[in-house]
């Protein structure tokens, strides 16, 4: 294992610092490293850059097993590393569904074999995501993958009794249910946010209430059974209000917002370009503002990408026939900087919390989201806040090109990513390639 000396950077609070890394661990953090080993370490100059704990994504679709044409654990790991992530959470809606210990162990092992970031599988709540029978949550929790987050994402755990039981059951191993809040009857055939734009475009509306009704129900259920619920991809101002209310009542709810919902609105659908088709849908400007406010004040705990790769043919078609979803690992940080930091809504420390500390804490990834202190595992992201770049879908590390940010000029570059003390990204480029990608 290598030893590295990062010089010229600053911590999130602005303090100038050097960091000495050896054997996968942060050995010393100081304005001037004194450790004798530093003298022979590889020096990496990161002048003007900010050193942050490695990002942790709680909502990633890696598509393997089953849809390797759109993404693999290897290609998704590369995209994650490029985006500054050192841990991602692989959603369960694969083929087969990650609803058994066997599948989650396979995903976990493939992640370890790739070795660019930790890939923590999320287990399905119900068998086959069908919403009827609980999956073997205990077996997945006990597996080598040590699953703690369970989600039927893509589908809502709609049956209130099933949801109640799931919330209760995961208490025994400190698990959490991550709910994809979507009332199915109110969203049959829905294509985009229901409002002025949908009325003009003739696309079937997806009302905010379909999301908010489930959030309201589930925070009440979590309260009742004294368990933890995590709300995936919050998109509406009303949803923020409900979570804020629940937290004020002391309910154990956490919530995430995606980068795309922090930036884009339903007006994008006017182009009928399916790259803007996503579940839950892009909402209105006032929703976007409420989400930013909620993320800034801590009502929304974390940013999660909902990275959802799709092959070209799923997006090269009319809106109604297209798949829902956008890729987001490689653009997440820049979007959060643009919408939250450059707007002075959040500090760099807040960003580190929302993208690293808090998601690791919610999911129980003990090795991640640690403060950059001596003794912590060396998961680091080095960002240059003053650089900017243009998103090019032809240059992404992901196997899929469905980024809604193509052509946009974004602030902030990932300069380097360190995973377990080794660089996966240096000078903005992947350090090593992975076979089969």
């Amino acid at each position, binding site marked *: 294992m290598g030893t590295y000396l990062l010089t010229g950077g600053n911590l999130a609070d602005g303090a100038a610092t050097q960091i000495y890394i050896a054997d996968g661990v942060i050995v010393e953090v100081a304005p001037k490293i004194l450790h004798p080993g530093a003298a022979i370490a590889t020096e990496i100059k990161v002048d003007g850059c900010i050193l942050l704990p490695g990002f942790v994504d709680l909502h990633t679709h890696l598509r393997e097993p089953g849809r390797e044409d759109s993404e693999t654990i290897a290609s998704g790991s590369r995209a994650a590393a490029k985006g500054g992530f050192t841990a991602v959470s692989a959603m369960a809606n694969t083929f087969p569904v990650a609803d058994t210990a066997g599948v989650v162990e396979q995903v976990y092992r493939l992640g370890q074999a790739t070795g660019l970031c930790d890939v923590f599988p999320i287990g399905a709540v119900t068998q086959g995501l069908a919403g009827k029978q609980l999956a073997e949550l205990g077996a997945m929790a006990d597996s080598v993958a040590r699953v703690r987050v369970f989600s039927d994402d893509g589908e809502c755990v709609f049956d209130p009794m099933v949801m109640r039981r799931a919330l209760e059951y995961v208490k025994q191993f400190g698990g959490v249910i991550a709910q994809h809040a979507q009332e199915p009857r109110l969203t049959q055939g829905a*294509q985009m946010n*229901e*409002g*002025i*734009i*949908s*009325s*003009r*475009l*003739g*696309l*079937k*509306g997806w*009302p905010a209430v379909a999301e908010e009704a489930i959030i309201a129900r589930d925070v009440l259920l979590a309260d009742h059974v004294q368990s933890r619920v995590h709300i995936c991809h919050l998109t509406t101002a009303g949803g923020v209000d409900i979570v804020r209310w629940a937290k004020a009542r002391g309910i154990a709810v956490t919530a995430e917002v995606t980068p795309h919902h922090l930036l884009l609105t339903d007006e994008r659908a006017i*182009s*009928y*370009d399916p790259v803007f088709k996503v579940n839950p849908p892009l909402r209105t400007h006032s929703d976007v503002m409420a989400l930013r406010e909620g993320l800034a004040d801590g009502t929304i705990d974390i940013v999660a990408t909902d990275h959802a790769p799709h092959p070209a*043919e*799923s997006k*090269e*078609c*009319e*809106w*109604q*026939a*297209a798949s829902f979803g956008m890729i987001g690992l490689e653009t997440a940080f820049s979007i959060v900087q643009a919408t939250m930091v450059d707007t002075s809504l959040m500090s760099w420390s807040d960003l580190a919390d929302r993208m690293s500390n808090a998601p690791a804490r919610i999911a129980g990834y003990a090795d991640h989201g640690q403060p950059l202190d001596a003794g912590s595992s060396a998961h680091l992201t080095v960002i240059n806040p003053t650089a900017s770049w243009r998103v090019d879908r032809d240059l992404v590390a992901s196997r899929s090109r469905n980024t809604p940010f193509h052509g946009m000029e974004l602030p902030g570059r990932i300069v380097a990513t360190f995973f377990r003390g080794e660089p996966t990204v240096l000078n903005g480029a992947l350090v090593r390639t992975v076979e089969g990608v």
Partner: protein
Amino acid sequence: MRHLLSIADLSYVDALSILDTAQEMARVSDAPVKKLPTLRGRTIVNLFLEDSTRTRISFEAAAKRLSADVINFSAKGSSVSKGESLKDTAQTLQAMGADAVIIRHPASGAAQWLADSAWMSGSVINAGDGTHEHPTQALLDAFTIRKHLSANSGDLRGLSVAIVGDILHSRVARSNVLLLSMLGAQVIIVAPPTLLPVGVESWPAQVSYDFDSVLPLVDAVMMLRVQQERMSDYFFPTPREYSHYFGLNRDRLGFMKKTAIVMHPGPMNRGLEITAECADSARSVIVEQVTNGVSVRMAVLYLLLAGSPTSPGVAI
């Protein structure tokens, strides 16, 4: 303009130019020889991925009167066709040298998507896309209203038009609200709240739930088709109740202005949104709408296809 995708893309001047051109085209339809050489050598494809014999043959008649070659391409009874096949179709049509594609598709935005795609270079004419727009239907409706109520010239200022029925699912309503209001008419939408889209308050139209109070105010009543299937989705309790409050019948005909006309884009559900008596009454211009449809579509084809493909169009 190269395409006709939605009324929202048209300017006031464009719209009037189409109506004025259609008026000249109507003369051809009255002539003993209904054939013009104007589009000789041009290939027009009728790409109908949703059943609509009426619209298809109207476009076909229009294209043939202008001497274009017409190819009919239809996928009968297809639900939303898989996207890749529309891409393949577009590439096929391009390879065949189609100068224009008239597309009817069950997905909203399909026409725009085809026009924006790089797979086809010809003109795209929207013949109805999902629940979005049906611009030529609105143009023929405006043409018909103008002919009867505005001395066949100018715009529709000073006129009021009621559009009644399933606004939510109606591409005809969306196009008509935009076009008629742009031409200066006052538009009143009449429907039960279940059949109005959320966001309708942003439309350039008034909304009423009370058909009877609207009837004496308007110069034209446009009845929309209501599908019986809507009942199973709880849009209204029973067809009988729907007819009772929102159907056009003999009594309601009596509330209308003496000069007011009755319109319907067809096909009608006689007995549901309109009684046979109303549909066949002297005030009904429903059959004439069909005739005008050919003239309006000839005008659109002429303005999109007759000129040079490279020089900027003057009219539309």
